[in-house]
């Protein structure tokens, strides 16, 4: 499923700005990554650094930092969690975030108040698709996933 060439996955949860996606895992943990929209806006990602496993990250405190040639900033965090692990493949080769934004996850986290509470304010399904496509249209974002 795409909007302006930007891939959208309806089974994932999204923040308000569609910068990050969150996947619910069977063991109650959550996996966090960047959306196709985000990686396109960032451009070629040169550096990814994740907070050390075991670190508590309250809502608003980023789980990771990314740098591209034209943008630097946080990977936002919208719920209270503890970092379990970073994706070492993506840490070693951050351009994977550009190439496979939904497979190259960034961090796996444990939500402090449980997965249901963490996901309660996120967008999913049709509502998420509409918002995602709206942002792509409004900001005229056309995604590219082959930046290396």
């Amino acid at each position, binding site marked *: 499923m795409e909007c302006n060439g930007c891939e959208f996955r309806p089974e994932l949860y999204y923040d308000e700005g569609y910068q990050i996606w969150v996947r619910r895992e069977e063991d109650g943990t959550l996996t966090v990554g960047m959306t196709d929209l985000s990686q396109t806006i960032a451009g070629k990602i040169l550096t990814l*650094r*994740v*907070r*050390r*496993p075991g*670190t508590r990250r309250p809502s608003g*405190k*980023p789980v*990771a*930092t990314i*740098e591209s040639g*034209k*943008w*630097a*900033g*946080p*990977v936002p965090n919208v719920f209270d969690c503890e970092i379990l692990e*970073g994706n*070492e493949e993506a*840490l*070693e080769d951050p351009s994977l975030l550009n190439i496979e934004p939904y497979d190259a996850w960034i961090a796996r986290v444990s939500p402090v108040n449980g997965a249901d509470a963490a996901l309660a304010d996120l967008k999913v399904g049709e509502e998420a698709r509409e918002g995602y496509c709206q942002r792509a249209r409004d900001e005229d974002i056309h995604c590219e996933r082959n930046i290396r």
Partner: protein
Amino acid sequence: MNDDLYLDNDEQSVIIVMTSGPSTPERCATPFYLGSILSSMDAEVRIFFTMEGVRLCQRGVPENLQAMEGGKYVIEFMRDARSAGVELHLCSPALPGYEIDPERDIIDEVDEVSGGGVLADLILSSDKVITF
């Protein structure tokens, strides 16, 4: 686990004193880029514009200034920094010299217009001071 790939810094405060302005556009992007990174690493970051730096907060200037040809406009770097949590402070005593009216000429991205005493306090109370 490769420790070098993970972030493990303490929270710190950083003040970036920005004196560069439109006469040296090549110096007008990095402070905001660095501020964004520091902020996303949990540092409490303030950029204080003084001397010619105040012109970057004058309406119409950062919207039309590029650090390098074909690159992003400075206003976009400033907005990225704010999105990352950086606060932008403007030095009021420097404004008259550039005929900038704080009521009329300032871009919306500025968080506070304050005097030199505030800058002095920030310099003394911050963990790190950087000047550009």
